């Protein structure tokens, strides 16, 4: 058991599992895939630059949706090819943003 007093406040309480699950749900909505298909995504699954339908407008929508559902703010400077390239990169980015929010 974790000492409750040691837990950070607010958004940082979100578990890694819930961020992972929210991110997969957003990708379902953006890519129009079934939950089962997105469940197969692993850290190396390619996103921006690998999926033709994921163009800049779709990525912009994806980031805006991440802001809404994860209660984070994403700055222009945060966005780079590395974080968008794979599911693992995007998840690590989301986790870092949630932790600092």
């Amino acid at each position: 058991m974790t000492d409750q007093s040691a837990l950070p406040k607010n958004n940082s309480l979100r578990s890694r599992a819930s961020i992972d699950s929210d991110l997969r749900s957003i990708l379902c909505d953006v890519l129009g895939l079934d939950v089962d298909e997105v469940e197969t995504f692993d850290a190396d699954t390619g996103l921006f630059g690998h999926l033709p339908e994921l163009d800049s407008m779709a990525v912009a929508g994806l980031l805006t949706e991440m802001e809404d559902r994860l209660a984070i703010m994403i700055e222009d400077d945060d966005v780079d090819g590395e974080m968008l390239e794979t599911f693992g990169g995007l998840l690590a980015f989301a986790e870092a943003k949630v932790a600092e929010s």
Partner: protein
Amino acid sequence: MFAVWPCPLPGGETAEENVRLFDAGRAQRLLVIPPLFDEHNKLRHQLVEVMRRLDMSDIDSFLFDLPGCNESTLLLSKQSLASWRNAVEAAISHFRATHVLAVRGGGLLVPDTISGWLYGPVAGKQLLRSMLRARVISSREAGTEESAETLSEIARSGGITLAGWTIGQDMFAELEASEKPVPENLVIIEQSSVGGSPLWLRAEPDYDAAQADALAALIADGILGTGPSE
């Protein structure tokens, strides 16, 4: 089927604009005020499916092109939310609409003289934020660094092209200043009432029969039953 209608222009002239319609001269007539920019493309098929279902419920419906969008030959860069609001008012009158269904950014264009529905309301500034972000991402991909702030400054003085859409300076300023609408005469339809996930989030235009059924049922119940028409 398709038809054309005389959309008024500033200065008193008119332009022939396209409309997709189910018109059998019935008493209940719904004007669909489309989403803006990219979201119109993503939702067009879905909206026509909703109209097809309303036709089966004996409701006429009209999906018109905003000047500068879809098949319109007018320049998008010359349009503004104000000019689009004029077009909406003229369309309500021309098609003798009894109700409206405004979708997403279309909700920014509805006059307060008609009742109906607003599906998936969004602030103009949120639409703009996504489009600015898309431009920053694609520029970065092409090796050019831009920021939303600098692009906004440019846009305020001379307009800008974002994700392929040429936004004039008036339109930019109007969108930037627009919050999510809270219309008094429209019933807000949230996605939870329609089920599934919103089609405007999809990277590609898509269609969902169950969502079209749910949306059409909500509207038909409202128009033919005890909804906001009364």
